[in-house]
């Protein structure tokens, strides 16, 4: 960028995971899956190698949305459900930044659910991490949009009587170019998925099954998840096959697949690239600023 201190050039500096860890102490409960997620983010960012000040990390509201504050990047812990539109505004205004958005399943698929399809169809180069714990933890354990039918919570005392959203299928159906799922119990795998998502040139989505130790299913915590997970690579899944990816994604809630469901082998041009092109093409038509409005003849 020319007009300020921002630099888009890849830097030769190398970073370690610790360079992305802030001094702020997480408020998460001991044993929360999100600790593993933030560690994976540190590792992914270290591998990417962009300096922290060139990264904007945007979140909504919820336990997991505290995550930007635990990094040394520019963080923006916004309002409930609006991480994606805010992240898109940042990317449009400053396309050379590395923009990460994050939040929980409620933030992304309930209050903010309306923004997801539009972020996908616009296809800005943004990575969206959802920490999906199937519960509202911050407000003490109510039903979430990804809670399984029958889940008993303080807001569903008789068991949930509605079906959950399938985040993977939802995002695949709207045409996201990169869709993956990871768990904090598989730190190496998760860090690699996040890194791949960031490297994907376009909107990338990683669903992270990050269990809630306080209000979540005791049978489905970090260690148990690790035992249950099935790596898509082990199944021989071809991640360029979108229909097969949707088939596998349909097992959300019954099977715990990890890895890349889908990666568009021919990523289309991003929205931010189109903006840059339009700015470039239209710049010659700019008028002197004191003559913006004149009488048409």
């Amino acid at each position, binding site marked *: *960028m020319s007009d*300020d*201190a*921002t*630099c888009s050039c890849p830097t030769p500096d190398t970073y370690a995971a610790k360079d992305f860890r802030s001094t*702020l102490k997480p408020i998460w409960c001991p044993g929360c899956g999100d600790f593993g997620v933030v560690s994976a983010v540190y590792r992914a960012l270290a591998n990417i190698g962009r*300096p*922290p*000040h*060139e*990264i*904007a990390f*945007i979140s909504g*509201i919820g336990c997991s949305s*505290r995550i*930007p*504050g635990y990094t*040394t*990047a*520019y*963080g*923006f*812990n*916004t*309002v409930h459900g*609006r991480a*994606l*539109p*805010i*992240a*898109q*505004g*940042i990317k*449009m*205004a*400053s396309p*050379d*930044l590395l923009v990460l958005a994050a939040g929980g399943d409620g933030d992304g698929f309930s209050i903010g659910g*309306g*923004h997801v*399809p*539009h972020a996908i169809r616009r296809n800005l180069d943004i990575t969206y991490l959802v920490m999906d714990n199937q519960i509202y933890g911050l407000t003490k354990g109510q039903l979430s949009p990804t809670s399984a039918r029958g889940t008993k919570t303080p807001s569903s005392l008789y068991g949930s009587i509605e079906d959950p959203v399938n985040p993977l299928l939802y995002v695949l159906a709207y045409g996201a170019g990169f869709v993956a799922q990871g768990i904090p119990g598989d730190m190496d795998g998760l860090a690699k998925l996040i890194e791949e998502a960031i490297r994907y040139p376009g909107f990338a989505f990683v669903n992270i099954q990050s269990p809630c130790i306080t209000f979540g299913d005791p049978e489905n915590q970090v260690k148990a998840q690790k035992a249950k997970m099935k790596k898509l690579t082990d199944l021989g899944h071809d991640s360029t096959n979108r229909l097969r990816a949707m088939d596998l994604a349909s097992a959300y809630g019954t099977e715990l697949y990890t890895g890349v469901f889908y990666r568009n082998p021919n990523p289309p041009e991003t929205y931010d690239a189109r*903006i840059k092109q*339009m*700015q470039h093409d*239209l*710049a010659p*038509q*700019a*008028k002197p*600023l*004191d003559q*913006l*409005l*004149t*009488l*048409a003849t």
Partner: protein
Amino acid sequence: MLNDLIIGMAGSGGDGIVSAGESLINASAKEGYFAILTKSFGSQIRGGESSCRLRVSTLPVLNPGGTLDVAVVLNWEDFLRFGGELPVGPETIVIYEAKTKVAPDAVPLKVKPATILCVPLEEMAIKAAGTELAKNNVVLGLLAGWFGLAQKAIIEGIHKKFAKKGADVLAGNDRAFAAGLEYAAQNPFAQDKRLSPPAPGKHASKVLTDGNEMIGAGAIFAGCKFFGGYPITPASEIMQYLQKELYKYGGSVLQAEDEIAGVAAAVGASFAGKKAMTATSGPGLSLKTEVLGLSSLAELPLVCVNVQRGGPSTGMPTKPEQADLFAAAFSSHGDTVRPILAPIGVADCFEVTVEAFNIAEQYQTPVIVLSDQEIAQRKEIVDPVDTSKLKLVDRLRPNAQELENYTRFKLNDTGISPLSHPGMKGGAYLAAGIEHNEKGSPTASGEMHARMNDKRLNKLNPLKKRQDLFIIEGDADATIGLIAWGSIAGVALEAVRIARAAGIKIKVLVPKLVYPVAEDIYRDFFASLQHCIVVEQSHQGQLHKIIRMWVDTPKNFTAFAKSGANPITPEEVVQKIRALATA
């Protein structure tokens, strides 16, 4: 000869009435007049009744005016639907279509106008051009002939408009216009009703525009680099203008999936270090409220234009009202003050927008610009903006020393702490909607919350000393005063000029900074007053009530308030003033 002429015309959708109004104002601009063209439609998306009123003058026009000097009626049913928008008085010259088969002594008007002219408009059009479609050009010919309106420029306009439709169509419309002129010449008025020639000057430099376009242009001038919005009547043209223009100046526009996403993206762009704006109307303002609160708490500059329309809920989207003031001032949870600016006409929309950006940037706050449907969508001939007197303010950014141990929300005397943005090395911090300490870390400390509230609210105090954001006219020691804001201010200003010309001592205050209430400025204004009327286009008289929350008002402090879409005319306000002056 006249210096000021108000023409109202109404017909069905296909009659070309609005198009005739546009031809007239275009021609008037070219000849160097000032004018306002207000269009009004029924609620149909296409077709149905349509009308326009044009006020042309040799001097700058402050408002669309009241009673018509000339009424053009293509059919009575449509004309009468506009009621108070097209008021006919005893002096009005009424020109109507003979095809309506209404006898001149039986026209369905409450007031009997002195001059009633029944003209076979359609018959003349068919005779001249072979089609009834040309009847709006017959009307233009009549108006040009009787009232001396911009004949040459109208013909040029007709030629330009029909050039692509072939020589036959062009010649037909020329003949239709000539037929109107000829009719006027053969049926002259007893008294000369022609408009005086425009004042000499650089006519070619006049600008024909509307409030929405002026706001868009003002934003570009101010350095806006991002706009996020959603289509909504009557604000959409701001987004449309910027979509066409902003990329040329290195910016971009997001037509978002909803109102919330539009303002959210704008806050994001501001966080990224760029000047950003959103625009909407009432329902959209309701939806944007939470994110405006985020902008207040995270201290991120943002301009939000709200083009008021009739409300609540869907209300009357195509009609003006000034009833969003409470919403603009108070619709945030928590202790929040956001500055509200209001343009008074098309002419000042540009500089008010620039000022909104300046205040947003200087004080790191959301600023709401309260325009309204009247200003937003009427066409107005204005002098070009003198940009040499406008200065631009950018946010305070941290210097190298401040970046060594960057403290985003540093508590200091001004309450304005340097604001970094992503990309700035050493400036990384956590912006948040959650209360924070000076470093930006989340806090639940009551003491810190109180100190941050002090910072966010007190930093705006210097704004209340800004005399330049107020218009005060009239006799400083008058005992009668008026207050008006937004599009109604032009009505009040004209009323005061009429009253003073009649020998009444009076003064008027127009706040362009509507909120926070500038206590001292009102107090000074009130000092000499025994009576003060706040003139407003809202049922409750919202500014009248807001002023009373902060300032001791004169003993007789009343509101002359009308719900939206009920025009307030200078004549009515003058009547109110006379009543007080003779009491």
